[in-house]
């Protein structure tokens, strides 16, 4: 009996020391029992040398309920180790990469260890309990460290071979563009289907001319790095040329400050193409706001106050698309929209007179200018589309007969 009591007293004392030494809520015990049996660290291929892949096998010993794993890395075997990743208890691998305070850099060697986290029950002294009991049993976390693995060198790749498929497709497309431009310049006949929205551009400007009211051109709500905005600026020059031919002002409200100079140049060029540089009014290129709905209300205000008669919404649009086009519809203006943002297309289709859908929008500048190089590019796009449709058909057939290579080759990584 005295032996039991002294054992209990010793246990309580140990626990008390642990409680004082560690934080009150979590007691960590370094043990080996639940530690992963093997840990392997390897360089991740096709990256910039800033990631390592750590794999481990769970302990073969029974009786452990692993709550999770912590992956630690250091530049020396002796440490200091940094926590790089945490996983749940069912995961057996993790990518570790540079964080805010610690970097994995190409060419450097790293040592890795994995800590298994499980829980254990401890007896803890509790003065609130009667003296005959004296201790209470609580669940605490237990950490079990694997041996240190390494060194593993993080290596940078000079080519991402996972993206070879995309690279080859771009090269193929580039070759098709070059070939079709050459053919177009050689005078080959290039046929394109008629797009109602393109014919309507002249109709809309004609309507504005009849009414003697300005044209409103909204080049989307994104900056110049957006490809839809670049396509819109091409069209802005063409629309400005037509407006200048009819001596009609063109108002361009802008959602991005950077777009001011770009739009000014595009409109100025349009007026110069028409031989009317004197008719260009810089005040009609108006930066309103970067804020989405401030810009929207500003643009709708222009529609209502200046009674614009033809509206062009060409570019990348989001929630403002329906507000703009519905207010435009209410004002009675003829409206032409074009975007590649699929979710905004239904709104434009409902509220506008003509809508350029996806690819039509990108084709417009070539069909409006009839420039040979642009027409060649457009024809190459058509052939590329045919190639993709053929790939889809072949891919479907191969999938049906159980051949998977085409799908895996086209998979984007």
């Amino acid at each position, binding site marked *: 009996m005295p032996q039991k009591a002294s054992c209990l007293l010793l246990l309580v004392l140990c626990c008390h020391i642990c409680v004082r030494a560690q934080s009150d809520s979590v007691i960590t015990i370094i043990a080996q029992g639940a530690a992963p049996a093997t840990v392997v660290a390897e360089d991740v291929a*096709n*990256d*910039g*040398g800033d990631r390592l892949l750590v794999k481990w096998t769970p302990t073969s010993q029974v009786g452990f309920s692993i709550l999770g794993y912590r992956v630690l890395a250091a530049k020396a075997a002796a440490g200091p180790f940094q926590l790089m990743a945490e996983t749940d208890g069912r995961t057996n691998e993790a990518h570790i990469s540079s964080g805010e305070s610690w970097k994995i850099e190409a060419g450097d060697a790293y040592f890795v260890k994995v800590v298994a986290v499980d829980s254990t029950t401890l007896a803890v002294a509790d003065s609130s309990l009667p003296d005959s009991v004296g201790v209470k049993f609580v669940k605490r976390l237990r950490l079990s460290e694997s041996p240190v693995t390494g060194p593993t060198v993080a290596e*940078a*790749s*000079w*080519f*991402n071979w996972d*993206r070879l498929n995309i*690279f080859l497709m*771009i090269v193929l*497309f580039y070759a098709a*563009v070059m070939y079709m*431009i050459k053919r177009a310049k050689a005078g080959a006949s290039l046929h394109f289907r008629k797009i109602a929205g393109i014919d309507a551009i002249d109709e809309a400007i004609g309507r504005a001319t009849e009414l003697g009211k300005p044209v409103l051109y909204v080049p989307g709500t994104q*900056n*110049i790095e957006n*490809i*839809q905005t*670049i*396509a819109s600026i*091409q069209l802005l020059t063409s629309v400005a040329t037509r407006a200048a031919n009819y001596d009609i002002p063109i108002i361009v409200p802008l959602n*991005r*400050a*950077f777009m*001011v*100079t*770009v739009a000014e*140049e*595009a409109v100025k*060029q349009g007026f110069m193409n028409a031989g009317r540089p004197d008719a260009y009014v810089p005040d009609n*290129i108006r*930066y309103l706001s970067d*804020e989405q*709905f*401030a810009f*929207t209300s500003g643009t709708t*205000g222009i529609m209502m106050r200046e009674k614009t008669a033809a509206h062009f919404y060409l570019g990348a649009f989001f*929630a403002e698309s*329906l*507000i703009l086009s*519905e207010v435009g519809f209410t004002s009675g203006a003829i409206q032409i929209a074009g975007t*590649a943002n*699929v979710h905004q297309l239904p709104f434009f*289709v*409902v*509220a506008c007179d003509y809508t350029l*859908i*996806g*690819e039509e*929008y*990108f*084709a417009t*500048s070539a069909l409006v200018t009839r420039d040979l*190089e*642009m027409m060649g590019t457009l024809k*190459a*796009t058509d052939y590329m*589309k045919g190639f*993709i449709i053929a790939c889809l058909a072949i891919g479907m057939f191969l999938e049906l007969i159980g051949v998977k290579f085409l799908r895996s080759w086209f998979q984007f990584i």
Partner: protein
Amino acid sequence: MIVQFFIPHPVVNDIANRLQNWAIIVISFSYVLGSANILRINGELVYRRGSGWPYKLVLVAAFFLMVIPGLLFGIKEGSWANDRLFAYTYTPLASTMYASLAFFIASAAFRAFRIRTWQASVLAITALVVMLGRVPISHLIWDELPGIVDWIMNVPNTVAQRGILIGAALGAIATGLKVILGIERSYLGRD
């Protein structure tokens, strides 16, 4: 940027990051140009008492009301300029504008679903089925209804969207190539 997509090496990454930083700096300075554009156009109209000048006056006043306290007190969350002017003034106004979408959707839907042609009939019937299938009591109307709606959304709707997306993606690549090859220069102010 295209090279960086295919070559992940730090040498290329560093150059790409440097270029991106330059772009950020240039874009930051464009706000000065944007502000000048606002003040030049609207200030001149106010000065000349042009048409709608009171609106322009409000705009110019609001511009300074935002800029001056922002410069003086900072724009971090909790600052006077952010809380009083942006969070409590601008944000409710923007939310109101966004909320007006509900009414615009109703008016647009009314026009879209007017049955005048057989295509409009298909659209109206499909919309009706989808709307009924999306309400919480849809299974009480007909057990199969939610399944039919899922099929409409996942098969015909997704197929059409993917078709548009493939075409648009090719158009975007073609436009990018035109810019890279110098075929398209109008965004630089050249035809």
